[in-house]
């Protein structure tokens, strides 16, 4: 029984890590309708900047946790203003392709700046130890990841449900013309949402770096995983993304435990099964466009 409990904790921790990586992508897709394939690259920048900050300039993980997402947000701002804003008229598919091209460009930029060595961000000393749960040793950092992930989930939920901005965002999700008609600057909403997505991607990068490491092509692996979570959850809902993250986290963890050789296969299989039976994802709403 202990081992199942321990694997449950592993699954939760991994699932919330996935949530942190995916929520920005989900937010942007929900409101802008743009599937941002450069999301993985923003995540990667978060991780690399955290590495530079902790390894070279300062030893503080906490500083990196604040600074790296801000820098990534600036990159996201530049991307939105320069590349996406002038091209909204081209349609969603074209914009997906733009972000796809951007991911390729960012890939080589990152390798020119940071090289291609395998790197890692050290766990802050206050979270470095292990704690014993179910008779098993767990790194404290993993437990902290669960905690941080839940905080972000609650924050996002509260913003969406309880604030004026959240109302605008929800309105934008269901009817873009309407909020334009209400005199709200839709372009500004798009920019703000994209930047928030960038912050979340950067944050995910910093938090995940001590666990998942930093290596060439990390962004594409992360992106694919994030897309799977996004699709399983249903595009554009925070609740769905959280549910899907936890589901994927638990399925991966338990499949590694029970059927280790099939674990990669199973996550994609899970996605295929869910899409076939629930074509809009676990909690997805009927999205009108195709």
């Amino acid at each position, binding site marked *: 029984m202990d081992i199942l409990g321990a694997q449950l904790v592993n699954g939760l921790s991994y699932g919330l890590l996935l949530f942190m990586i995916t929520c920005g992508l989900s937010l942007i897709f929900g409101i802008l309708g743009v599937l941002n394939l450069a999301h993985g690259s923003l995540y990667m920048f978060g991780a690399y900047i955290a590495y530079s900050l902790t390894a070279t300039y300062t030893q503080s993980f906490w500083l990196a946790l604040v600074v790296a997402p801000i820098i990534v947000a600036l990159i996201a701002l530049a991307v939105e203003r320069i590349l996406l804003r002038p091209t909204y008229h081209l349609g969603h598919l074209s914009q997906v392709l733009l972000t796809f091209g951007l991911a390729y460009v960012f890939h080589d930029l990152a*390798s020119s700046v940071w090289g291609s060595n395998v790197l890692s961000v050290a766990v802050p000393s206050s979270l470095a130890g292990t704690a014993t749960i179910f008779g098993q040793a767990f*790194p404290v950092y993993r437990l902290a990841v669960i905690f941080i992930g839940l905080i972000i989930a609650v924050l996002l939920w509260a913003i969406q449900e309880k604030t004026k901005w959240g109302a605008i965002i929800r309105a934008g999700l269901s009817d873009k013309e309407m909020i334009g008609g209400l005199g709200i600057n839709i372009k500004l909403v798009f920019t703000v949402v994209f930047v928030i997505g960038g912050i979340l991607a950067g944050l995910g990068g910093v938090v995940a770096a001590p666990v*998942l490491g930093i290596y060439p*092509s990390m962004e594409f692996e992360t992106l694919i995983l994030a897309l799977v979570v996004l699709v399983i959850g249903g595009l554009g809902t925070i609740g769905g993304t959280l549910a899907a993250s936890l589901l994927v986290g638990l399925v991966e963890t338990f499949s*590694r435990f029970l059927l280790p050789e099939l674990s990669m296969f199973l996550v994609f299989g899970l996605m295929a099964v869910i899409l076939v039976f629930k074509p809009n994802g676990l909690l997805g709403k009927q999205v009108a466009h195709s």
Partner: protein
Amino acid sequence: MKKKWTMLISIIVVFTMLAACGESAINSSSEAEADNNSKKKSGGGGETIKVGAILPFSGVYASLGKDLSDGMKLYFESVNWEAEGKKIELIEEDTEADPQVSLRRVRKLMDQDNIDILTGAVSTAVAYAIRNDVDSNKLPYLVSHAGGNDLTRSKRSDYIWRSSFSSWQIGHSMGEWAYKNVGKKMYVAAADYAFGREVSAAFKEAYTAAGGEIVGEVYPPLGNNDYASYLTSMRGVKADGVYAFFAGSDAVRFVQQYEQYGLKDKFPLVGSGWLVAEDLRQTIDPAAAGTFASTFWDYNLNTKENKEFVKAYEKAYNRRPTIESLEGYDAARIISEAVTKLGGDVSDPEKVIEAISNVSFTSPRGPIEFDKDTHHVIQNMYITETKLVDGKTENEVIHTIETVKDPGK
């Protein structure tokens, strides 16, 4: 409609122009059939020896490619890029670690650059992919990294020689030592790809032959990003140690998480040199301490040759050499010595491979020579232990297995 066809035809015209300087394919392929031995090479009797290197400069293996390249350049620099008065020209091509791209590059090196000798390949898939083209074109090829067993076994070619290692050498050398020094029961964890499978199979073979028992094994997928689940299940295993084969980012994550989940105090970690490789260890620190690994070279190998190599490398590049730097350095030396032995005449591939096969010297890794039956290098293998020195980890060579020869089947 008309425009489209005009475009298609203009493409063909462009191609024709591209080819204006080359000889036509019909000619070269029929010539190849008519006279297999004559090689029309500008470099053969000319003033420069052209060495082609196919290495990954982008993609997941990019850092390995760079180290191999730097190692080669260090050696060629030390002989002034000359052999027997002839200039050595190194032409590097990026494989992107993709076999298809690599084959295209090799064809370019053969047909456009007319190289005399080929070296490189980090990924075994790349080496296998180019094997037939190299063989049918009679191009001498010195493999300087790719370790797949079959390259010097079922896929052996007269023109392919390997100076690096085979999966078998890496895995097998640990078996007996682990049985005598770690314990009688081992658990095996290896990345699920050909290299991981081959190395762990060789380890199991040697370990069980020595009398040991494998109590369990697990093969996480390559590029698996979280080992928590595997490590949690591993805790309950009744074993004296864990043998692990992982490389690159997998190795960093595995070794770090192995310590974080408190397994290091329970089972000693045993593996291949890549688990605690020179460039990874600065990242893994200090979780790597206490690991035993089998390898064919180490930074701290205490020989005159190695100290000179390390000193020269650090002076040139201002960073520590890795095992790949050493592989590049040795490959360059083997090529230079073979060319020197031939008096600088590399026009006959049969003579080039014969010269390569006769090269033997004391490398920074110890004495090396080629096994003429398998075309694979005979070298010492070392067992290292990773220790904490002033808060940083260092490997120490604690055991030497001399002149290890791949069985070739």
